[in-house]
């Protein structure tokens, strides 16, 4: 009878070899993805600027927006810092699977944490200021805009919760691997 190894090794698989053309294409593809990620991080300062533009009585609230803008620009630096030091799986040929998985999970957790702090934080501040600015315009604002405000608050809470949950899941995985590493004698 067939052993699992035999079944596994006798499966048909298409042969894939990297040609120079394919390498160039892959490199272009990766560059495009990186550019897209870099552009993605610009969304936060842009959104802050946009909210500032639409805020009534913005002169009074300008310090808050400036604060959010500075915060988000600092975020641009911190979020993109990792990209400047481009690293790939290929650079970790000397690391074992356990070490690599641990590092990759830590990287992911740090990324989630940093995007909460540097992207979500300034955006939440700008949205809060924007809503406050709207509230300052007149007494009738709150009953009318309550559904909008409620939706924004729900979105902020859900986003924060999902990111927090994701971070907790990653931390759980990291702890599990660390435990495993200790058992492994590492």
């Amino acid at each position, binding site marked *: *009878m067939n052993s699992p190894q035999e079944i596994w090794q006798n499966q048909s698989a298409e042969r894939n070899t*990297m040609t120079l053309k394919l390498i160039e294409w892959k490199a272009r593809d990766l560059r495009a993805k990186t550019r897209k990620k*870099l552009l993605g991080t610009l969304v936060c300062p842009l959104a802050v600027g946009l909210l500032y533009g639409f805020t009534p009585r913005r002169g009074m609230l300008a310090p808050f927006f400036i604060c959010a803008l500075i915060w988000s620009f600092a975020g641009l630096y911190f979020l*993109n*810092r990792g990209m400047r030091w481009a690293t790939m799986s290929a650079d970790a040929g000397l690391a*074992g699977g356990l070490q690599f998985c641990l590092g*990759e999970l830590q990287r992911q957790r740090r*990324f989630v944490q940093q995007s909460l702090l540097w992207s979500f934080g300034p955006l939440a501040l700008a949205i809060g200021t924007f809503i406050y600015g709207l509230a300052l315009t007149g007494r009738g604002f709150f009953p009318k805009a309550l559904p909008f405000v409620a939706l924004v608050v729900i979105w902020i809470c859900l986003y924060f919760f999902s990111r927090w949950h994701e971070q907790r899941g990653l931390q759980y995985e990291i702890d599990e691997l660390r435990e495993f590493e200790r058992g*492994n004698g590492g």
Partner: protein
Amino acid sequence: MTSSRESSELASARRTITSEHNRSFSCSDVLENSVSGDYLNVGGTEPIPAGPASQAELYREAVDRFGPSLERLAGAYEADPEKRRDLSQDIHFQLWRSFAGYDGRCSLRTWSYRVAHHVAASHVIRERRVYSTLVGLEELEALSDKAEGPESADRRLNLDRLSALIRRLKPLDRQIIVCWLEDMDTASIAEVTGLSPANVGMRIHRIRKVLAKRFHEGGSL
């Protein structure tokens, strides 16, 4: 004639792809970056340090020797054919790149498997599947397998079952089972995964138990 053309093509390809990534990184550099995913420097204007001349030969040798295993490995990490092709190309791309920094400190096989598993593990982690539905060997042992009956003894079905079972595992356990299925010995698996041989041995024992439980009814083990 051909070889000089080939080497000039390779040099130009190297110029095209690489910017900062041929720099030698220490493991901690590699593992401590805060950005998720693989990136290339978008500027690509810096002068490129030339990789070792043997990069292309090493890559070719690795593909000749382990090409089919690498395809099977991609299959163990991704079920969707389109994504699997992408993953496979990523593995080959990273492998090709990695040989610029290969210094012979480990065997070609260990190096190739490590890089391939790293790329695949990154893919799984990035796809956020690690902590949602994936299980460890321990949980897999405890899970029942009601959907699969003894009639599914045929090779194709067995392969599907085996692949499905592998794809339910967390990356580290997946590495062990894939290496074991590729007939690697305990010491080599330990080298690839970074686990102790004793730990690998214990996990292989568990894998065999799980597989025996799942496949014995089908009469295929």
